């Protein structure tokens, strides 16, 4: 009997040593607010699929420091109202460690304050620069800056000798922010915006507005700033109308589906984007190459659809978060500091160098100029 009790005590004792070990390996909850359905689903869809793929891969390898990552993905349908309620839910009820997303700039701006108040790290996958300018302590973003995209486009225009342009933009947070940047930066490059038109994000035909702009013979090039199918519709309507001035698109064009959807009309479209679109063309010495090739191959093998730069933004957000957790442990304040001090991290969008003043961490070199040729994205040459 005594013997049995000893065994019992011994197991209890052993148990107390084992318990802390299991308690250490708890799961880390990471929230994500993405526009999986609705008008911006071509952003949120690849983003959500990328996160699921990465989380499964990471957990299969044992997680971060032995902690599994549990994703809580919320589909906002690109609605800022839903994003607000999901943000509150994730922070207050789910008490997530950090939030990835939202997909669109409009949504991100609405929940910037909520994340800040809840002291929860927010890694936005949306492009507009206003998200990180002015800097909010807990808010970061992974896509490149729209001001850099604008500078890259204007640089190419200057090269081609264009000084008089027309601007079209969608009525989304992204479109409005881009329009603002275009108007602010144009004088720096000696470019004059002769006409500026805003269209609804669900627009299905732009031939009337094309007719209106085409009547102004002084316009030498058109810049379109949107993340919606309208960017393909505009190309079709312009070429059908016989208006052959060069068409520049924003960095929201980085999905080959858009080029395919407008077929022959998309030939010659010029736009800035990260290097994910054709990683095989990069130098082997490029720090991004290995990562880009792997992500592209993994994603395309798993989901049987071409990779887009948008999924890449989610990959960057997820990897940056995991890297920070790995360095300093699952402590929110420390992880925030670790992200803010992270430098030289090569992601899909470019090489990130965060600082207290820059919560985006990417510079203009994160962009390359691309053009559509024979239905494919190729590096732009004059």
């Amino acid at each position, binding site marked *: 009997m005594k013997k049995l009790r000893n065994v019992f005590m011994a197991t209890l004792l052993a148990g107390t040593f084992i318990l802390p070990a299991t308690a250490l390996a708890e799961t880390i909850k990471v929230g994500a607010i993405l526009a*999986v*359905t*609705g*008008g911006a*689903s*071509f952003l*949120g*869809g690849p983003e959500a699929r990328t996160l699921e793929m990465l989380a499964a891969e990471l957990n299969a390898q044992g997680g971060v420091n032995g902690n599994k990552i549990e994703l809580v993905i919320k589909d906002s349908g690109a609605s800022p109202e839903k994003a607000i309620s999901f943000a509150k839910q994730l922070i207050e009820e789910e008490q997530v460690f950090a939030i990835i997303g939202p997909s669109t700039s409009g949504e991100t701006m609405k929940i910037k304050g909520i994340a800040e108040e809840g002291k929860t790290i927010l890694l936005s996958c949306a492009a507009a620069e206003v998200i990180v300018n002015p800097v909010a302590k807990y808010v970061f973003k992974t896509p490149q800056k729209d001001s850099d995209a604008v500078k890259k486009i204007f640089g190419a225009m200057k090269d081609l000798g264009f000084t008089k342009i027309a601007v079209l933009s969608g*009525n989304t947070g992204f479109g409005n922010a881009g329009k603002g940047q275009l108007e602010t930066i144009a004088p720096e490059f000696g470019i004059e915006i002769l006409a500026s*038109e*805003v*269209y*609804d994000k*669900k*627009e*299905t*035909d*732009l*031939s*009337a*507005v094309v*007719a*209106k702009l085409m*009547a102004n013979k002084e316009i030498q090039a058109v810049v379109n700033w949107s993340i919606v*199918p309208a960017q*393909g*519709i505009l*190309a*079709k309507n312009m*070429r*059908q*109308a*016989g208006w052959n001035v060069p068409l520049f698109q924003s960095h929201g064009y980085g999905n080959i*589906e858009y080029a395919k*959807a*407008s*077929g*022959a*009309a*998309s030939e010659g479209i010029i736009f800035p984007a990260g290097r994910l679109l054709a990683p095989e063309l990069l130098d082997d010495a490029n720090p991004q190459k290995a990562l880009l090739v792997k992500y592209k191959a993994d994603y395309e093998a798993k989901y049987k659809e071409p990779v887009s730069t948008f999924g890449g933004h989610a990959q960057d957000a997820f990897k940056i978060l995991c890297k920070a957790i790995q360095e300093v442990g699952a402590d929110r304040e420390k992880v925030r500091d670790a992200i803010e001090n992270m430098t030289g991290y090569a992601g899909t969008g470019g090489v990130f160098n965060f600082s207290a003043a820059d919560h985006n961490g990417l510079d203009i070199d994160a962009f390359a100029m691309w053009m559509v040729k024979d239905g494919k994205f190729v590096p732009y040459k004059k």
Partner: protein
Amino acid sequence: MSFELFIQYVFAGLTYGIIYAIVAIGFNIIYNTTGIINFAQGEFVMLGGMIAISLQKMMPLPLAIALAVAITMVVGALIEIVFIRWLDRPSVLRLIIITIGISILSREVALHIWGESVRALPYFVGNEISAISILGARVSPQVLWVMGVCTVMVILLSLFFRYTLTGQKMQACSANRKAAILCGINARNMVTLSFMLSAGIGALAGCVMSPITYTSYDGGPDLAIKGFTVAIMGGLGNSMAAVTAGLMLGLIEAFSISLMPMAYKDAIAIAILLLILFIRPHGLFGRKDAAGLKEF
């Protein structure tokens, strides 16, 4: 404004206008036999386009379109049989809520089948950049296809309602349902038929417009709102008036762009809808006393 520009606006306006008109006719056919507005009408257009896009990979385009129209008609019939036919004297409000539910349901189903990406049928003739010169304006051949197919559809429909026995039976049901039943007309079958018919014309419109406007799973509600505006403008139940109203709205929208920023285009359509609802709820071409006899 130069003459070429004027013609360019006219064509842009007529293209939207005829599409709105077809959606409005879909509303009207069902309204006439049941007295309800089928808010899933926009989804028929989306389904037609989507099914044709999927089939077109396996068979020639004309066959794919014909099959897509047939499948959508079956879907229309099934919707009526499953959700509406067995209801015993349902209230108008209940039926409207059911059709809104069907609209949401079809969108979700489409999202699961086709995903969130935007698709398009290939151009019937030429490609994305080909254009025909008409009076100095350049018009895509697909625009002519849309106008041609929709015009033929409108003519065939009016012939169908006027000269065929089935068409006359459907009209009888809309004029006086009780009397029609007393004459031995199976009113329930006529309702099913009206759903099939409006699903079919919606689907065909969805196919011809797909190369121009693209097809996405959530394109239905926007079309439904425009179609509804047009149906109200013309006077509910009056298909020929819907054509006139549709073309009017399309032209107003197109020319509004020349004067105002494009972003106001939809605001103009909604403002017209509200104005008509306040001032002439029976529509521009409808009669007040006739509208008074209807349930709503």
